[in-house]
Structures are given as C-alpha cells and as structure tokens.
C-alpha cells in the first residue's frame, strides 16, 4: 500500500548586487540571510531564530544503487561553515554553492507545498528589504527565482518525495524518467535562447524549460556536474529501514502556483501508484535527448521514441499517465496524496492537458513558459523587434525578479491557489500535519534551549545535563495530533522531554 507522500522543495535563488561591481555571491547571500534572521530576534513574535543547523546526519554521498561512487564522482561537499538557519515554520534557510537557498518544511500534500513555496518567496522579499538597510546607499540585493544565468550556469529547484524503502529503485528510475521528461510541457518556466554548446539563438530562440539542457546522464549521484535525470542520493532524513527520500533535481523553479502544484501533485500521485503496483510503465528509448527535444518543441507535437519501438508525443504520454492515475484513484482512493488535494490535482491535470492540446495560449495564467511567451511575443509585436533583441533577454530574467514592483510574473495575471494572508502566516507557523510542526513549535517556544536542529532531530540544552537529542525519524509524526497538547502543557524543555519519554 502506498505510504503518505510527504514532500518538500528546496530552491536555490539567483542573486545580484546592484549599484556596485565589487561584490561576491557568497557574502551577499550571507548578508541577505543574516539580515532576515537578525530581524526582531528576541521579540515575542520573532519569525526566525538563528538556530544552527545540525550536520551530524548529512550523508549526501550515499548512493541509492548501493554502489560506491566511482573515483571521479566525488560526493557533494557539505558546507558546514556558511550561514544556516532553521525557521519557526520548520524551513531551512541557508547559503549553498554561492546562492541563497530555502527548503520548505515537510508538507503533507501539494497544496501545502504551494503555500510554503509562496511563504518562501515572501521571506526572500523581506530579506531583500532587510539587507538593503545594511548596504551602503545606492546598493541593492536583487533575488531571482530562476534556474540559470543563460550562460551555462544552472542552479536547482529540487523536490523531495517520501517513498517506501521496499520499492525497487529500478522501477522508480523507469517511472520517474518518463514523467520528468514529459511533464516539462506544463512545469517549464521558459527560457530565451539556448545554453547547449554549438547551438545558437537563431536555431533555438525560445524553449520550454530552463533546466533541461543542463542534464547529460540518465541516472547518477551528481547534482552539480553531468547532472542525471534521476538522482540517486540516498539520504532519507528518516528511518532508513522504512523510507527512501527521492531527491528530484530536474524541475524548474516556478513562478506560477498552478505549475508548482501540478509539478509536485502529479509526481506524488505517480509515486503512490508505483507503490501500489498500479502503474504501467512507458519507458523512453533515449531519455536525455528526449528531455532536450521536449524542451525545444514549442509545437508540442514531436514524437518521442519509446523503448518498445513505437512513438508518442509528450502530451500523449501525459494523457496516458493521467488516465492511469484516474483509474488508480477509483480503485485505491487518494489517501496517500491527501483526498481533496489529490482530487484537485487530477482535475487541474486534465484541464492543463486539454488546454495544451487545443489552445496553449489559453494557459497564459497557469503555465510559466506560456505566460512568458505571451509577454515576449507581445513585446516583439509592439516594438517591432525579433528574438535577437537584447531586451528579450532582460524580459526573460525580469519575469523571475522577486521584487514586487519589478517582477513581470507578478504582473502577468497568474492564477493563485493560496492567499497571501495565509502565506504570511506560513512564514512563521509550521504545517500541522508533519514533523515540521514539532520542529517549528519547539523553536517558537524553547528557542533559548534549542542548540541545533535538522530534518530528523532536535538537540536541546537543559542546563547541567549533557545535551539531549530528540530523534524525529517518522516524518508523519510530531504533528499537532501527536504532540500538540503535549507541547502546550509543557512549560519547560525538561517537562517536554519527560512527557516524550526521551
């Protein structure tokens, strides 16, 4: 039986300092995050506490294929010396690879992910404001929610799904690869030009995704070089006997909430179907070229070669997966992905595929690459220019600018699924239905005694005794249901630990 699809996303943001040529991205990212976590600390409603991240369980070099990484594939480094904060909503906010990065708390369904992703955007907006107060006059930090500088350098928006450890990894690879290649038609954020060596903008003026061209392998451990479509990092941040965390690195960061919702929602459904043995695979013949092909095919009509020798378009593959998902929902129910959320995913999935098939431009309020294309084509018609005009590159970047007054995405009339008032609350409040609740509430209530925290434990200082580590190996526990009253009744950490039996 499928297990609850607990999910979270981690976004690396693009960063620039305007008004000076003398800046570096690591210091700017540190300043940005420190400015945010330094605001109002110590006040009753502090939104963030500078609690250190605890690196004790980090093993990003572990490989799901159970093999030692070859010599040339060095495991990713853990950068323990850079800014790393845990927020009261259960999120992690830190500097990674010269980018500010924010990981949402663990969420129980795709709609909750959309809420915490919107909260993350608002956190970055507030960070920019706070950082500007610390910068010399005339300087400004600007954050972009995109995935590439259009010059060959990419950074990620990763999704993480909780899977049953018993599911054979080979099955995950086949199912995930086909979905990741074909879902691009509604998850892509759009990009002007190409970053493939030897290709030019006159050949590829515009494409569906930012990330596709940065993928060179089918399966592997890497995340920064020779990126694979399926990443094998085996670091569950949970009970490793029971769970796997599938670390998905192929996605674009989305400005459209509907796109984020479907990116996460459709993937969660397919992984749940796989656990139920209810998914008929549609393996692709050659996934890496297919991934590039789908991103370059604005007509959505080019056939992809399947492993059985037949051909299907990306849209046809998605129709097939949707029909299978609907049959699965009828036979197994939608508990694993959240009943009402799952229903909404199926409805919106169908609506989006219908729109892509009949009139893609009708989805300019839902799909980022289409919203951006509408702006670019409108601009070209108005100013009588072509794809080579440098203003198109500026429009492409500015679509992702997170400053509310400058962001083109904010002006594009994108449909929203969550209210900003709720997202404002989610900046400080954790989700109630995952272990993020326990992490966030402990930070709110006992900030002074939390020494460090990470995804699966919290370390408390209770005075004279040695430090006490509370493990949280079950992502579905530590919820308001499990520990709500316990947390409320505990006046001190010692009381809390006693009640937990820790």
């Amino acid at each position, binding site marked *: 039986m499928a297990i609850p699809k607990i999910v979270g996303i981690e976004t*690396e943001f*693009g*960063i*620039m300092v305007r008004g000076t040529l003398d800046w570096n*991205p690591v210091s700017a990212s540190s300043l940005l995050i420190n400015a945010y976590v330094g605001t109002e600390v110590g006040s009753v409603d502090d939104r963030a506490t500078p609690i250190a991240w605890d690196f004790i369980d980090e093993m990003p070099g572990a490989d799901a294929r159970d093999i030692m990484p070859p010599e040339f594939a060095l495991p*990713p480094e853990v950068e323990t010396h850079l800014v790393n904060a845990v927020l009261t909503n259960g999120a992690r906010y830190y500097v*990674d*690879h*010269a*980018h500010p990065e924010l990981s949402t708390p663990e969420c129980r369904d795709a709609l909750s992910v959309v809420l915490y992703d919107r909260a993350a955007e608002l956190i970055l907006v507030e960070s920019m404001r706070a950082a500007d107060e610390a910068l010399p006059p005339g300087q400004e930090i600007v954050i*972009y929610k995109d995935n*590439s*500088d*259009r*010059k*060959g*350098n*990419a*950074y*990620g928006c*990763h999704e993480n799904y909780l899977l049953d450890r018993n599911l054979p990894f080979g099955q995950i690879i086949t199912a995930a690869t086909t979905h990741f290649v074909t879902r691009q038609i509604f998850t892509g954020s759009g990009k002007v030009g190409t970053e493939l060596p030897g290709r030019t903008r006159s050949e590829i003026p515009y494409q569906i995704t930012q990330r596709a061209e940065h993928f060179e392998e089918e399966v592997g451990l890497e*995340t*920064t070089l020779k990126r694979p479509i399926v990443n094998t990092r085996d670091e569950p941040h949970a009970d490793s006997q029971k769970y796997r965390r599938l670390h998905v*690195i192929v996605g674009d960061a989305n400005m459209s909430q509907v796109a984020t919702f479907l990116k996460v929602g459709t993937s969660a459904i397919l992984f749940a179907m796989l656990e139920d043995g209810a998914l*008929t695979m*549609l393996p692709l013949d050659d996934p890496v070229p297919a991934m590039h092909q789908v991103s370059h095919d604005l007509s959505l009509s080019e056939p992809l070669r399947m492993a*059985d020798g*037949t051909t*299907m378009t990306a849209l*046809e593959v998605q*129709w*097939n997966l949707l*029909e*299978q998902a609907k049959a699965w929902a009828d036979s197994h129910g939608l508990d694993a992905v959240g009943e009402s959320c799952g229903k909404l995913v199926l409805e919106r999935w*169908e609506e989006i*595929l*219908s729109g892509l*098939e*009949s*009139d893609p431009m009708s989805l300019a309020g839902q799909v980022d690459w289409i919203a951006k294309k*509408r*702006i670019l084509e*409108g*601009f070209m018609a*108005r100013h009588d220019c072509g794809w080579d005009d*440098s*203003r198109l*590159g*500026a*429009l492409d*970047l*500015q679509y992702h600018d997170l400053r509310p*007054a*400058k962001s*083109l995405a904010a*002006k*594009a*009339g994108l449909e929203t699924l969550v209210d900003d008032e709720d997202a404002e609350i989610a900046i400080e409040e954790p989700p109630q239905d995952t272990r993020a609740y326990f992490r966030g509430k402990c930070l709110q209530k006992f900030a002074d005694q939390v020494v460090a925290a990470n995804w699966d434990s919290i370390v408390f200082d209770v005075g004279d005794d040695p430090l006490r580590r509370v493990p949280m190996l079950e992502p579905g526990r530590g919820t308001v249901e499990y520990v709500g009253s316990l947390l409320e009744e505990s006046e001190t950490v010692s009381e809390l630990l006693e009640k937990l039996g820790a």
Partner: protein
Amino acid sequence: MADREQVRKDAPRRQEQEEVAEEAPASSEQGEALKAELDDLLDEIDEVLETNAEDFVKSYIQKGGQ
C-alpha cells in the same frame, strides 16, 4: 499499443474541443478583451523594464549550483 490508443480516444478533451469550436463567435469578443489586457500589461512592462537591457543581461552571471 492498443491500450494507449484506447486511452487517447476515450480522453474527454475531444468533446471539449468540439464545444469550443461551436462557441467560436463569442470568442472574438473574448479575443478583444485578451488583447486589451495584454496591451495594459505591455504598458506596465515598458515602465519597469531594466533600462540598459544589454548590460543587465551581460552582468547576470551566477555561479553554478546544484
């Protein structure tokens, strides 16, 4: 392959497409509204677009990440 064909034919979008086609006269009005909306958006974009586009695009250099 037979299964796949069947799924395609059963998919409900066929019907919807036909309905859209029948509503064609109404959609020209809708088209005007969409055009006006895009014009407003482009007006707004002309106001906020980075002034020196070429320098801006050139200076947007990021370190590779994950």
